[in-house]
C-alpha cells in the first residue's frame, strides 16, 4: 500500500483530538481535588478516628497505579471501554457483567447523591459566615440539584478550559495551604507520624483506605476518551498514571499537612470540632482573608463539578445499558435536540431528589450522614468493582492471544487484584469504624448488603435474558456497539489501536 500518499482521513480526524493534559484535566476535575482534601480527608479523620489517612492516600495511589496497568492495556482491546462492567463481561462472563453494571449504577448514584450533602452544607455555612444569610443545607442542595438536573438534560458539561482553570487554581490553593500548615507545625517541629507505614497494619485502616479510594473515583474515566486522543497507545495510559500519581501525592501531602498543623495526636479531635472548615481554620491566621475565601469558593465549585460529572456518569451508564436493551430500550434514546441521554438523566435526578427530601425530612446531618456515609458507601461499591475488574483483566488476557508483556497482562493486574481484595476485606470488617457507628449497628451490614443484593439481581436478570432474549444476552457489554451485534459476530475483541 503506498504510504507516501497524503492520508487526509487520518489528518482530518486528528484535528481537535485530545492530548495528555486535556485528558488529565477532565478526569482530575471529576475527582475534584479540593472536595477530597477539604471534605473527604477531614471528615475521614473525624468519623473514623483513624490518623493513618495520609499514608492511606499514598498506598491507594500505588495500588490504583498497579490496577491501571492492566486496565488501560485491556481498554484498547474492547469496545465501550468506559465502563467497568464491560471489562467484567469480557473477563468473567455476562452474568458477572450485568451484576457489575448494577453495582456500578448504585455506587455512582451514591457518590453523586452523597455529594449533595457536602455541597449543601458547605454552601450554607459559607453564606452564613460571609453574608449572614440563614439558609438550610437542603435548600442549597436542592438549588444545586435543580441546576444539575437542567444541565444534565441540556447535556452541558463543564467546559474543558473552565475545568482546567478551576483545577489549576484548586491545586495552587491546596499547595499554598499545605505550605502554610507545614510552616506552622503545632509542636514547633514537623512530625511524620501520620505518614508512618505502620498505620497500614493498624486497627481501622480499612476505613481509612476506602475513604482514600473514594477520593480517587473518577480517574477510571480516562479510557472513555481513548477514541478521541491523538495517540491512544500513549495518551490514555500516561494520562491515567499522571492523574493517579498527581492526585495521590496532593491528597497525601494535604492530609499530612493538616495533621502537622494540628499535631498528629490532635488531628481527630480538631476534625471533629471543625468539620469541613478545618483546613480553612488552620490556615486563616497566617493568610489573607481573600486567599482563604478563594479557597472556600473553589471548594464549593469543585463539589459542583463533581456533582455534575457523576450525574453524567450515571446517565451514560443507563444509556449504554438501554442501548444494549439490558435495561428498557427507552433509556437508550437521546434527546433529539441536545443529544442528552434524556431518560437516564431524569431518572438520576429523581432518585437524587427523593433521597434529598428524605434526608431533609429526617433532619439528618448532611456532612456525616449524607456526604460521608453515602459517598464512602459509593466508594465501597467502586472498590468492589475495581477488584472484580482487575480479576477480569487477568482472566481476559489469559484467554486471548496478545502481544502484551507478562507484567501488563498478568503481573500488575494480579498484584492489584490481591491488594484490592485485601482492602475490600478489611473495609468490610471495619465498616462500623468507617461509619462511626456501634459494632452491632445493623447499618454496617445493610449498606454493603445492598451491593450484594443488586449484584444478585443483575446476575439473575442476565440468566433470564439468556433464556428469554438470546440476542440481547449476546450483546451485553457492547454498549452502543450492540446495534451491530445482530448483523455481525459481536466484535468483543478489537485490534489494539
Amino acid at each position, binding site marked *: *500500500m503506498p504510504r507516501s*500518499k497524503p*492520508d*487526509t*482521513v*487520518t489528518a*482530518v*480526524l486528528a*484535528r*481537535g483530538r485530545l492530548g495528555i493534559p486535556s485528558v488529565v484535566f*477532565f478526569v482530575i476535575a471529576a475527582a475534584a481535588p479540593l472536595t477530597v482534601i477539604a471534605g473527604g480527608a477531614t471528615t475521614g479523620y473525624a468519623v473514623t478516628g483513624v490518623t493513618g489517612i495520609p499514608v492511606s492516600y499514598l498506598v491507594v495511589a500505588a495500588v490504583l497505579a498497579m490496577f491501571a496497568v492492566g486496565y488501560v492495556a485491556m481498554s484498547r482491546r474492547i469496545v*465501550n471501554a*468506559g465502563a467497568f462492567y464491560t471489562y467484567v463481561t469480557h473477563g468473567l462472563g455476562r452474568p458477572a457483567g450485568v451484576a457489575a453494571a448494577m453495582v456500578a449504577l448504585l455506587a455512582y448514584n451514591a457518590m453523586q447523591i452523597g455529594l449533595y450533602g457536602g455541597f449543601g452544607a458547605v454552601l450554607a455555612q459559607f453564606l452564613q459566615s460571609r453574608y449572614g444569610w440563614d439558609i438550610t443545607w437542603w435548600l442549597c442542595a436542592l438549588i444545586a440539584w435543580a441546576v444539575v438536573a437542567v444541565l444534565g438534560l441540556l*447535556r*452541558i*458539561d*463543564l*467546559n*474543558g478550559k473552565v475545568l482546567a482553570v478551576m483545577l489549576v487554581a484548586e491545586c495552587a490553593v491546596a499547595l499554598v495551604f499545605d505550605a502554610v500548615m507545614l510552616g506552622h507545625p503545632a509542636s514547633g517541629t514537623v512530625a511524620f507520624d501520620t505518614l508512618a507505614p505502620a498505620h497500614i497494619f493498624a486497627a481501622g485502616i480499612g476505613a481509612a483506605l476506602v475513604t482514600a479510594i473514594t477520593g480517587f473515583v473518577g480517574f477510571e474515566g480516562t479510557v*472513555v*476518551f481513548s*477514541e*478521541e486522543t491523538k495517540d491512544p497507545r500513549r495518551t490514555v495510559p500516561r494520562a491515567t498514571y499522571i492523574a493517579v500519581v498527581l492526585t495521590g501525592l496532593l491528597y497525601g501531602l494535604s492530609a499530612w499537612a493538616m495533621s502537622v498543623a494540628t499535631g498528629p495526636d490532635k488531628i481527630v479531635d480538631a476534625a471533629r470540632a471543625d468539620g469541613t472548615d478545618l483546613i480553612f481554620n488552620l490556615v486563616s491566621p497566617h493568610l489573607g482573608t481573600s486567599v482563604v475565601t478563594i479557597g472556600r469558593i473553589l471548594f464549593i465549585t469543585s463539589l459542583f463539578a463533581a456533582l455534575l460529572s457523576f450525574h453524567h456518569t450515571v446517565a*451514560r451508564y443507563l*444509556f*449504554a445499558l438501554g*442501548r444494549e436493551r439490558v435495561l428498557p430500550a427507552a433509556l*437508550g*434514546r*437521546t*434527546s*433529539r*435536540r*441536545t*443529544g*442528552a*441521554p434524556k431518560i437516564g438523566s431524569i431518572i438520576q435526578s429523581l432518585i437524587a431528589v427523593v433521597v434529598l427530601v428524605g434526608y431533609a425530612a429526617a433532619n439528618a446531618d448532611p456532612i456525616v450522614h449524607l456526604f460521608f456515609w453515602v459517598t464512602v458507601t459509593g466508594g465501597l461499591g467502586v472498590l468492589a468493582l475495581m477488584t472484580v475488574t482487575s480479576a477480569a483483566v487477568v482472566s481476559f488476557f489469559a484467554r486471548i492471544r496478545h502481544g502484551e508483556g507478562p507484567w501488563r497482562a498478568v503481573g500488575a493486574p494480579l498484584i492489584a487484584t490481591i491488594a484490592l481484595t485485601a482492602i475490600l476485606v478489611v473495609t468490610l470488617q471495619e465498616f462500623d469504624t468507617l461509619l462511626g457507628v456501634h459494632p452491632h449497628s445493623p447499618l454496617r451490614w445493610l449498606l454493603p448488603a445492598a451491593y450484594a443484593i443488586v449484584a444478585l439481581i443483575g446476575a439473575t436478570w442476565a440468566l433470564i435474558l439468556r433464556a428469554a432474549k438470546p440476542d440481547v444476552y449476546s450483546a451485553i457489554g457492547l*454498549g*452502543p*456497539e*450492540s*446495534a*451491530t451485534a*445482530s*448483523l*455481525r459476530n459481536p*466484535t468483543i475483541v478489537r485490534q489494539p489501536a
Partner: protein
Amino acid sequence: MPAHNEPAPPRRPVRAIGTAAAVSPRIADEFFYMAHDDQTGRPRLFDTALASGLAAALLVELYYERRITFEHGKVEVLQRLPPKDWLQHLVLDQLIAQPQHTDTRTWLAFLATTAYEQVATRMWQVGLLQQQQIGLLWRQRTVWVPTDINTAAWSWARLSQQVRNYRQLDHFDIALAGLTLHTQLDTALLDGAPYSAQAHLRQLVNQSWLPLRDLLADLSSVIGAGVLSHRTS
C-alpha cells in the same frame, strides 16, 4: 474513463421557487430537509446525529448508485465510474484515494466533518436552500433556510403518512426511514402515532437490504459512542 476532474455544470437557476424540484431527489438532500424545520431551518437533531446522519446519507447515495457496498463494518468500492453528481463524485474519489481506510465508522466520522456544508451547498446550487442572516447584533449568524416550505415538508409528510398507514416504502424512502430511525428522528416523525406505527417503521428498516442495515448499524453506534464520550468543548 470520462473526464474525472471536470466539475459538473452548475444547475442552479433550473427552477422557479414554488415549483417541484427539477432535479431527481437525492437522499442526503431529503434527509437534510427532514432534519430541519421546514420554515425556520432550525435543526431538529443535535449536531453529532445530524452530521453523522448526513454522512451516512451520502454513503447511501453511492450505494444506490451501485458504486459501493457495506459488509461487516467495512466499505467496499464496487465500481470506480464517477457518478454524475459532483458531491457523490467527490465522496467516491475520497474513498478511492484512501484505500487504507475501510472501516465504515472511520468514513462516517470523516465525512461527518464536512457533510453538512457540502450537502447544504449542493442544495443551494439547485435552489433548494437559501442563506439567511438571523439573530441580533452580536449573535448574528448565517443559517440555511428552505426556499420553499412545500418542497421542504414533502419528504417528512410523505414518510410520516406512509408509516402511520402501515404502507410499504419504495427503496428511496426505505433509506430515509432507516436514517430517521437510527438518528432517533423517528420520535418526532411519529409524534402521537400508536406504538405499532413505530414497530412498523422498525420492521420496514429491519427487512431492508443487508448492506444498508450494515451501514445503519454503524451509524447507530457512532452516534451512541458520541453520546458516551461527549464533552462540552
